């Protein structure tokens, strides 16, 4: 179904002829499935047209046209996942041209960006100024804007929190085409606060998961940034993909630990959190600890086997980044005491400056997610519970893993060693867990396995009272959780209906107003 000519021309008048297309080749490039929970269907439905707005005014004009002409729209930044159309009658706003860093306020420690600034760009600029930002665990290639880059949970969350908490003032083009400026932006034209003075709609615009393209378009946002004690340019050398650190910068340390029991690991991590000595802290399988530094899946497989022999116990990774030599000594001493108390041991590879330096950089920049998740087959799924305390995360992963074993036994998922991780948030305040699945999406049996296990994992989250994950999207999954969690879906639908009276903002990945 092509757009009617008057609609196309109206859109073209907004963005100019160079910045709109309905050519098949352009549409099909956006219709290629993303790898997240990919199935045997290789292509999603085509958008009717792709637009490339350059600023908020053009976004608003497009949204208003959609409301006027009764068509739907969906916006995305780098366009990795959650941004596909569900059927005909939908146009895309590719926000690629909105790629400016608008402000870095060193004194008040915030940064303002447009949606197509990637996290690595912002992080690199911040580090020149002694600052750092949280980076989405999916990678530094994702948008730097917290509300655009999904939940924003990642390895840096131990000291750098996550999207919901880092979000400050925000500019939002609502589904019906109003421009709303939230927080201090709404009253003082300043970016420093998300909740006032001025209107605070933080809960409205975010929900639990962020709207994933289903509630208008977020065009500019400020976020809290953090102190960076490291160098302006990390000392990385070598040619791709063998990036090697020439040294570990002063005050930095990597520790890869294994602990005698799960109970002791939880205890150690809790104490590390309480003492606030960690810059990054993750429970990880050793095989995935350095997979971002290895060249291929074959190397990872060998490494996995070797590591499994080395450490027959729960393992976690800690990065320390100290502000001074005294601070460094203090943090190391605290760590030593915790390890003595919990029987933890550090793997020798963490002491090799080249390995440790490269690893530290890889995890600060978040470069390993793609290789870790997609390199095997191009498809993966991440099974998650609601963000909660560490014990709950461990419990969920253990339960979900048992079910996953059955799928692997039936050859419905790949026997990849059952990679999981738990990222600590705000010095142990909360944690985020994922159990990764990998499978061949073109194999109908495995594609079915990927989808079925995803639903099984959701059911485990519901039956085990593990909370509502950040990975909930679509009516069907929301409706799985809603009845068990205070019927939050009624609120979400009410929000959707109120702010999007014409259902213009396509909401497949969010929630529709339909009960």
């Amino acid at each position, binding site marked *: 179904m092509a757009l009617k000519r008057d609609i196309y021309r109206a859109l073209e008048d907004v963005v100019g002829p160079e910045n709109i*297309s309905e*050519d*098949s*080749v*352009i549409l*099909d*490039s*956006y*219709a*290629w499935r*993303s*790898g997240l929970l*990919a199935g045997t269907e*290789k*292509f999603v439905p085509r958008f009717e047209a792709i637009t*490339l707005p350059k600023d908020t005014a053009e976004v608003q004009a497009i949204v208003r046209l959609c409301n006027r002409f009764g068509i739907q729209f969906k916006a995305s930044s*780098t*366009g*990795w996942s959650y941004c596909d159309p569900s059927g005909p009658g939908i146009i895309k706003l*590719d926000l*690629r*041209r909105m790629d400016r*860093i608008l402000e870095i306020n060193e004194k008040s420690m915030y940064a303002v960006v447009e949606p197509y600034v*990637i996290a*690595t*760009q912002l992080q*690199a*600029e911040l580090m020149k100024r002694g600052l750092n930002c949280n980076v989405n665990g999916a*990678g*530094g*290639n994702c948008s730097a804007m917290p509300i655009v880059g999904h939940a924003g949970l990642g390895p840096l969350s131990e000291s750098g929190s996550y999207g919901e908490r880092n979000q400050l003032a925000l500019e939002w083009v609502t589904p019906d085409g109003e421009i709303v400026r939230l927080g201090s932006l709404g009253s003082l034209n300043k970016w420093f606060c998300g909740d006032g003075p001025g209107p605070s709609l933080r809960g409205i615009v975010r929900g639990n998961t962020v709207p994933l393209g289903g509630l208008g378009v977020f065009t500019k946002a400020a976020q809290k940034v953090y102190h960076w004690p490291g160098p302006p340019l990390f000392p*990385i050398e070598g*040619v*791709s*993909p*063998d990036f090697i650190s020439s040294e570990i910068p002063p005050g930095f340390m990597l520790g890869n630990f294994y602990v005698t029991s799960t109970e002791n690991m939880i205890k150690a991590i809790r104490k590390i959190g309480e003492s606030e000595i960690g810059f990054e802290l993750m429970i990880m399988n050793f095989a995935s600890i350095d997979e*971002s530094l290895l*060249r*291929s*899946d*074959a190397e990872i*497989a*060998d490494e*996995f*086997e070797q590591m499994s022999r080395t450490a027959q116990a729960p393992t976690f990774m800690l990065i320390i980044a100290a502000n001074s030599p005294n601070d460094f000594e203090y943090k190391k001493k605290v760590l030593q005491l915790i390890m003595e108390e919990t029987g933890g041991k550090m793997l020798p590879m963490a002491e090799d400056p080249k390995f440790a330096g490269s690893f530290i*950089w890889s995890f600060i*920049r*978040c*470069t390993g997610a*793609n*290789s870790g*998740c*997609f*390199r*095997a*087959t*191009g498809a993966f799924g991440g099974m998650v519970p609601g963000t909660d305390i560490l014990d709950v995360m461990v419990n969920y992963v253990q339960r979900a893993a048992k079910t996953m074993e059955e799928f692997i036994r039936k050859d419905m998922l*790949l026997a*990849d060693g059952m990679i999981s991780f738990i990222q600590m948030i705000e010095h142990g305040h909360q944690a985020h867990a994922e159990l990764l699945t990998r499978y061949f*999406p073109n194999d109908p049996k495995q594609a079915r396995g990927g989808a079925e296990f995803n639903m099984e994992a959701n059911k485990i989250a519901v039956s085990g009272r593990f909370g509502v994950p950040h990975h909930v999207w679509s009516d069907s999954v929301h409706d799985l959780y809603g009845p068990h969690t205070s019927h939050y879906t009624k609120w979400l639908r009410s929000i959707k209906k109120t702010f999007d009276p014409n259902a213009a903002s396509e909401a497949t990945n969010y929630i529709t107003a339909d009960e």
Partner: protein
Amino acid sequence: MALEDYRSDMEMCSRCSICKFVPLERLKGYQHANVCPSISRYKFHAYSGGGRMGFGVAMLEKRLDYADKLLEVIYNCQMCGACDISCKTAMDMEVLEAINEMRIKCVKEGHTIPALDGVINSLRKQGTMVPGVKAGRGKWVEGLEVKDFTRQKTKVIYHAGCRTSYDRDMWGIARTTAALLQKAGIDFGIGGENESCCGGRAYQMGYKEDFLRQAKRNMALFQKSGAEILVTGCADGYHAFKTLYDKYGVKNGLEVLHTTEYLDRLIKEGRLKPTRKVAMRVTYHDPCHLGRLGEPYLHWPQEQVPVKTNILAPKELRRGTYGIYEPPRDVIRSIPGLKFVEMDRIKEYTWCCGSGGGVNDSNPGFARWTAEERINEAESTGAEAIVTACPWCEKTFKDAIKENGSKIKIYDVVELLAKAV
């Protein structure tokens, strides 16, 4: 190989967009984050490596016909390989090979664009990608005493290349190279009027059969001469002779060196001594075909084998690791008085000059836009000159400078070295 052979590679694309940026580990700031000229200029996802993977599958699934727009997207790409390298920092999949096969498929099925057909006609009739008169190919050497390897035995062949031979402004590079080789006491010869195009650019434009014809013709000539080493100052030629000829099994053990590799070797052996000061602040532009695309071809038995975790281990991939990066830099560093500064995008994640893949013929405006981006980056270093190692890069930069009025100078490494020796 055919596009179908890269189906599984293309289907691996998860749409992460890493192909659009320099490797994240090496990104140094907000500026110069982009690595792909095509997506940077034309913005729609289809113009990126990932977008090309998506519509490549669509081509195989027959979802797309050969509309003008399809050809326009396919040919607005310099085939520089930057997307391929960035992708392979994370993934095990061939990007550039698949993109090249799309072009080969287009040509094979009779869907070409007129501007490139004109260039190929020149190749077929005159043996050059630069429309000119075949008889003028050896004119650059007039007045020099240089052997003709087609008639006299030499150990080394110097292949000047199409761009250098047919552009009077480039003759100086070839003449200087010849003078340096003579100064170092190298017994070398040239093809002169018998020299012919390497065919590499034709291959990257999709004209595989024309490339193979050139490759076989050239190798017959080289082998008859008995020479052991082929030296060229053209990065396109270097990539073709060293990598593509090997890929198609016609290289037959010929050692291929770029002039910068050979001169670097001669300097380190003490056969050339740069002693005169050249007071200048310069930066170096890595030609794509010498750098990331200049690494050896890796032959692969074309089967994936299961490894322990049940994941298929693919072939070892060319990831740009073994491209030619240091020899030209070492030559530059050997010149007394030169102040050498690096740009943000270098080596395997360099930004293309704009000329590659036929873009200089099919869309000169896009070539110029791409070159201007690089010139701006060079200017930001405070350099007075861009030094490069490819006549195509040099020509594209010079054309862009004529248009935008930049004061920056462009040199080949050879020209600077000659000032010091």
